[in-house]
Structure formats: structure tokens, C-alpha cells
């Protein structure tokens, strides 16, 4: 007769063995080749489709195999933190600066301070000490329905709180990081009190309670539910290039507007996606090579062509879609300020009832 206690033990042991066996092939490789830096392990908040092709290119060029886990930035960060010095991750890629700053504060990144990277990436888009480097830019813009709104009626983010836009604005939930960083940038420039007044005005102008993502806001403008929406420009780009005829049609009904372009104004709000090398990276050389690869000319161009993001470097030829949107002035606020005010931003939005 099998005793239940030993049965349980047997079960637990067999699962453990099974999972070990499946992960062992990977681990064994890691251990063997790491001396040759033949492998690099990446935790990425950029989704697989938006990073894997580049990683494959990197492997093809250098022979260094890239292992990838994708996930939400904070979840990956928690994983990195609790794995401590045994973490397999060499590189952390996130889609906003807040997570990079949190990773830096948690002590899981190392200061690379690589001269090549420092030269190629503008100071606004990298950490001073080289804990992280921006790879691509994400601009938060206004889209409007040209049948209902004249371009010259639009000017700045601040203007969106004006009562003239009552029941005309669509924007997604304040849980979204890009709204949080937009509000953080307002706090950084204008201070909390003024920003809070702005949020109250903006919320009063909502055409509907926030729901859905940025594409939904664009569709709502196209369908006439609201006249103005605040979205990341690459969503509009993706819709314009969509294989879905209806999405394309909706995107063509709206017009992009670059906010804050006036002489005395600060420029359009930008967030970054970026990468840092982990504190306990086992394959540091390959990791550094990868980050450099992700910021080289070809990769910089790829972000634009694949996802309509802007390059962090200014000597890159933009994609067709980006060209069509024209030149614009970007906010020169160092992006680490966005991280600094993120909590204040969320709290202010909570107080104003921005869901």
C-alpha cells in the first residue's frame, strides 16, 4: 500500500523533476556558453512582436542566442528583484521611463556609462549615470475630427481643460501609463496645483467615462462620439497601416495635431521605451552589445517602420507614415522627471475622479 504521505512527496518530486528536465536544456546551455557570452537573457515589457524580430537579427549577426520573456514592466521588475543576485536576466527592456527609474531605485540595474551609447543617445533620453538608455520615443498627441473642429482652435494640452470643449474629449483610463506620464510632465512644468486644476477642467470636458484603449478613442472620434482624443501617435499609425479596411477608414477620418508647438511652448510630450543592463548580469558583454544593437541605425529605423515610434537619435530617416505627420518640437524635459512625479499624477487623477 502506498502511504499518502509518500504519495504526496512522490507527486511533488515528479512535478519538480519534470519541470527541471524541461528547463534544464536551457539552463545547461546557459552555463556552458556563458563563458563565451554566447547567450543573453532578456526580460522585456515590449511585446514579443515588437522586439523579437530585432533580437533575431542580433542573433543572425553576432551568433549570440537571445532568450526572451515578455510581461508587464512592474511584474518583470518584481521578478528581477526577488530573484536577486541569481537572476538569469541580463537586460531589462521597458516601454516607459517610470519602470526604468523604479528598476534603478530598486538596485537591479548597473551603471554602464558606455561612451558609444552616451554619444549616440541624447542626454534627455538616457540616465545620467548610464543605468538605462532610451531606445525609441512615443509621442502623446491630439487627434481631432476635421469636420467638427478647426485646426486653429487647437493649441496646447492645457487648452483641453477650457470649457469650450465640454463633452467633446475622449481619453482612456488614468490607469494607463501614458496618461500618467503626460500628467507627470504637466506637474514637472506647471506644478501640482495648476495641474490639478487642469485635470478637473479636462475631466469636466469628457464626452464619456474613460474606457478602452487608444485605438478605441480614435474610433470614437471617427464615429462622432467625441471631437477630440488624446492618444499615442503610433496607434494612429498602426490603424492607418492596418490590414483591416474599417480600421484604416476610421483612422483616415481623423487628423493628427501636435500640441504645444507655439514659440513659447515646450513641445509635445514624449515617453521612451528603453533598456538597462541588470546589476547581476552574467553575460554583460553580450548584453551591452545587444543594447548597442538596439540603438543602431537599422534598429532605430525599424521602430518607426514596424510600430511608428520615433527614433531617440535625430540622424535617422523616418518612415513614410512619420514623414507624413511632419516635423514637430518635442518636449525637452529629461524623461526621468516623468518617473519622479508619477505617484503625484495618479493621486491627482484619483482625486479628480478620472477613472
Amino acid at each position, binding site marked *: 500500500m502506498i502511504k499518502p504521505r509518500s504519495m504526496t512527496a512522490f507527486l511533488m518530486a515528479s512535478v519538480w523533476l519534470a519541470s527541471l528536465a524541461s528547463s534544464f536544456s*536551457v539552463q545547461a546551455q546557459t552555463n556552458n556558453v556563458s563563458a563565451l557570452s554566447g547567450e543573453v537573457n532578456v526580460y522585456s515589457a515590449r511585446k514579443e512582436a515588437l522586439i523579437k524580430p530585432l533580437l533575431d537579427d542580433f542573433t543572425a549577426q553576432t551568433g549570440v542566442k537571445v532568450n526572451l520573456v515578455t510581461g508587464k514592466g512592474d511584474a518583470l521588475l518584481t*521578478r528581477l528583484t*526577488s*530573484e536577486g543576485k541569481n537572476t538569469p536576466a541580463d537586460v531589462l527592456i521597458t516601454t516607459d521611463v517610470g519602470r526604468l527609474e523604479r528598476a534603478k531605485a530598486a538596485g537591479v540595474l548597473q551603471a554602464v556609462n558606455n561612451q558609444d551609447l552616451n554619444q549616440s543617445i541624447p542626454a534627455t533620453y538616457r540616465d545620467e549615470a548610464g543605468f538605462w538608455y532610451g531606445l525609441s520615443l512615443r509621442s502623446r498627441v491630439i487627434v481631432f475630427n476635421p469636420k467638427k473642429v478647426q485646426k486653429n482652435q487647437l493649441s496646447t494640452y492645457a487648452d483641453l481643460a477650457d470649457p469650450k470643449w465640454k463633452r467633446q474629449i475622449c481619453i482612456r483610463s488614468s490607469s494607463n501609463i501614458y496618461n500618467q506620464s503626460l500628467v507627470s510632465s504637466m506637474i514637472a512644468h506647471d506644478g501640482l496645483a495648476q495641474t490639478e486644476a487642469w485635470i478637473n477642467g479636462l475631466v469636466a470636458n469628457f464626452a464619456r467615462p474613460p*474606457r478602452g484603449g487608444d*485605438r478605441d478613442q480614435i474610433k470614437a472620434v471617427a464615429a462622432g462620439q467625441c471631437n477630440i482624443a488624446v492618444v499615442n501617435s503610433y496607434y494612429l499609425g498602426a490603424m492607418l497601416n492596418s490590414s483591416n479596411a474599417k480600421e484604416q477608414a476610421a483612422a483616415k477620418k481623423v487628423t493628427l495635431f501636435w500640441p504645444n508647438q507655439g514659440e513659447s511652448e515646450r513641445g509635445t510630450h514624449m515617453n521612451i521605451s528603453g533598456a538597462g543592463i541588470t546589476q547581476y548580469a552574467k553575460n554583460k558583454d553580450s548584453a551591452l552589445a545587444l543594447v548597442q544593437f538596439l540603438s543602431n541605425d537599422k534598429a532605430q529605423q525599424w521602430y518607426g517602420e514596424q510600430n511608428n515610434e520615433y527614433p531617440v537619435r535625430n540622424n535617422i530617416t523616418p518612415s513614410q507614415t512619420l514623414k507624413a505627420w511632419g516635423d514637430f518640437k518635442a518636449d525637452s524635459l529629461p524623461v526621468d522627471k516623468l518617473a519622479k512625479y508619477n505617484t503625484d499624477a495618479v493621486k491627482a487623477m484619483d482625486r479628480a475622479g478620472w477613472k
Partner: protein
Amino acid sequence: MEVSSQYAAWSVRSLFNQRLGRWFFCLVAIAFTLSIPVITIALSVLEPFSDTWRHLASTVLSSYITHSLLLMLGVAIGTFTLGVSCAWFTCMYDFPGRKVLEWALLLPMAMPAYIIAYAYTGALDFAGPIQTAIRDTFNVDYGDYWFPEIRSLGGAVVMFSLVLYPYVYLIVRAAFMSQSHAILEVSRSLGNGPWRTFYAVALPAARPAIVAGMTLALMETLADYGTVQYFGVSTFTTGIFRTWFGLGDLTAAAQLSSFLLFFVVLLIVIERISRKKMQFHHLGQKRSYQRPTLTGSARWLCFTVCVLPLLFGFILPAIQLFLWVLETWQTSFDAAFFTLVQHSISLAAVAAILCVLLAVIVCFSARLAGNNRIALFFLRVSTLGYAVPGTVIAVGVLIPLAALDNGIDSWLRSNTTFVAGLLFSGTLFAVIVAYIVRFLSVSVQSIEAGFSQIHTSIDDSARTLGRKPLGVLLKVHLPMLKTSLIAAGLLVFVDVMKELPTTLILRPFNFNTLAVRAYELASDERLADAATPAIAIVLTGLIPVFLLFRTMRGASKSH
């Protein structure tokens, strides 16, 4: 005084009773192991309440609570109405399409709530085809006409009810089927009409099953993140994520989660109270039951009642997904896709088998202990994870496992030359542990309901005839529990197929599942591209549903 000391003496004795002791040890060990992640989270309450709390309490906390409660209330009503009515009609009457509906009513189970939400939003939203057609046909504009807003609390209630009612249907139907029809016949012969027989006899007798099914449905509702987030309904789960991701305060997020746990405990207590001191088993010989064939309007009424949940919970959303797949299949259907299918199925199968085994052990141990309070307490503790959002479970698994790994590693480093690195975290072991923590409740609910149908006198007889506990379990109980066991395994299988956040956080390098792929595409707002993996989840979910149906059928034939 004397009574309580006697009671204490009795329970101590029963704890140390040799044979009972072994099983009891198993129960406690399982409960303890599985509750580590939950305890890790619950202990956060002991940490100082940060500034974040004052902020939450003064702004959004009350809306989290109200919305969560309203959502649960709505889903309770929805799943009860749909689940019980369909179970009763298909069980008791013969009407056109009954044989097909009997199993087809389980189909919505294969549809994850977040996917049905995408499908309906695509069709019913302001910018969707239906409203656009209305505007074009009647030449009206926004604000000129009324149309239900799909992305709302009400919409969420409907979505959850449509995909979660099969839990109630499945368990309650099994209860109705195994109810001795003699009782119902006696009720009818005493002059009770069908309606009175239903609510005065059958319904109370099926109460444990109904409550078990609804508890599952409500726990799933509480733990959902994808749907409520997409609909912009602020509940506890969205609040937890917002506190963690937006405010960057993992401790406050964990504290919020422990308040969510309080809701779960409340649910469990309600369930316990509702079946307190009631014994439900049927001693009568089961005889084949001849369903009366309905005629006239009654049969069409039955047909309509049973076909609507199927239509809205499965057929229409499946059509929407299928249309999307037609648009995008060329790009999303490649060799890598089959790897995803393989990953999803093997994870789900392993988790299902383990959950059933563990559930049998804990339920049987509790039964051996006479289902006394202590045993039931540990049984409940082992299943607490079900209502905790997957992300929270993942963190609860990640932190202790990584600590264990790092502990082993540094011990080895200081005592040997062997470098272990991370043994558990970052492997499939961690993923499977998390699944068990999260889904053991599903298998326990089903198996416990199965056990409650077996009278303890059967155990006593078997013991009198010289069987040891394990012998009773293997030779007597398991054959009688066959249906429950298969149901339990399949429910877990389907749940794991759909599971997202835990997999996302804990999976090893280069390992994706269908749900992960669907989520990545959907969260990038590429719903049409997400449709291929989504429909694959739905289709794989159908396999167990068909097997389930076959066992249901087999069970009903054997009576």
C-alpha cells in the same frame, strides 16, 4: 467547561489517532504549502499602512467596494437564473433540441470572459458595425438615440453571467440527475405541480450544488482583471493593479489584495452557513427516469430558455471571432502557433491531474476526520487562492520560491563547490505550483459535492468489512466519484487554458502559451489578430467539454 474540555480531548485524540493522523497530516501539509502564497500576501496587512492608504480611502476605495459588490450580486443572479433553469429543463423534460442543448449549454465555458468581452465590444460599441448601421440607416448622431453601453458595470455582469453560468449548470445538473427521482415522483403523486416540485423539493435538495457552482462563478468574477479593466469598471482587482503599477506601491497593493481575500472568506462562510447541518444524500435505488415529452407552447418556452444562453454565450461571439480569423489567419497561423497549442495543452493537463489528485486527498482526509471544524478549516485554507487575482498569486509564489532558491544557492556556495542558481523560480515548476494554488478550489468544489452524495454509512460498512481508509477510497469512493473526478479535471484544464496573468509573470524564457499570445495582441488593441489564438483557446476548451458531455451521458445511461 466540561463539554469543551471533552471536545478538546476528543479532537486531540482524533488528531493523534494513527490512521486518521496520516491523512490529517497530508491535509495540513497541503493546506499549509498551498497557502504560503496567500499568507505571503495576507501578512502584508501587518506592514505599516502607507500614505497610499489614506489616499485610497479618501478617494477610490469606496467605489472599488461598491462596484465589486454590485458585480458579484449581478453575476450571482445571472448565473443562478441561467444555470438552474437550463439544468432543470434539460434534466426533467424532453423538448426539441434537448439532446443537443444538454451538452451545447456547456460550450460557453470554453470562452474566457475577456475574449467574449472583446467580441461583444467589437460588435456593439459606438464605433462598431451595429451602431454605425443604426446611425447610417436612421441618419442620427451621437446622443440622438439610446443604445445600451456594453462597456459598463451592467455589460460586465452580462459577460460574466454568459460564460460562468455553465459552472452552475454543470454541477446542478449532476445533482438533479443523481437526485433519486423517487422523491420527485412522490412529490408529484402528493399533488404538487411541476413548479412546486421544483422549488419545494428539487431546489432545496440541490442547494449544495447550486451554492458550489455559484461560489465558483463569483470567485472567478472577483479574480477577473482582463474584463473589468477593458470595460473601465473599477473593482478591487483593477484597484490592485493601479496601486501596484501606477502608484508603485506593491505593499499597498498586497494589502488591498488581502481585503479582497476577506470577500472570499465571506463567500465561503456564506456557503458553509447555507448548508449547515444539512445532509444531502440519496439512498434510493436509482431507476431510469422517463422524461415527459412537452407539447405546445411549453416545449418552445423550454427550448427558448435553453437556447438563449448558448446563442449569446457562445454562438454569436464565436461567429465574431471567426470573422476576425478570416481577416487575419494568413499572418497568425504559422509553425510557432502549434508550439503554443502544445504548451497550453500540456500545462493544462499536468495541472488538471495534480489538482484532482490533491483535491481527492484533501476531501477524503476531511471526510475521515468526520468533516469536523478543524479539518474543514484546513480544507478551506487550501482553496483560498481561487479568488485571488492571478497576478497577486504569481507574486505570492515568486517571492517565497525565489527566497528558497537563493537560500539553497548560498548554502551550497558556502558548503560545496556546486552552484545551483535558481532551481524553482523561472521554471515550469513555479507556473504549475501557481496553477494549483489558484485552481485547486475548482476541483475541490466538484469532488466535495461528489463526496457529499455518498452516505457515510457506506464508509462504515466498508471499514467494518476490513478495508483500510485508502482501500475505501480506492475501491469504494473513487468508482462512485468517477463523474465528479472527470468534471473536476476538465474544469481545471479549461481554466488553465484560459489563465493569463500567472503564466505571464512566472513562465521561463522563450515559453509562450495561447493565452499569452492572445493577450499581447489584444492589449496592443489588435483584436482581429488576437482572434486566432483566442479561437484556439476556445476550441481546445471544447475538447474537455465534449469529454465531459460523454461522461454525463454515460452517467445518465448507467442509472
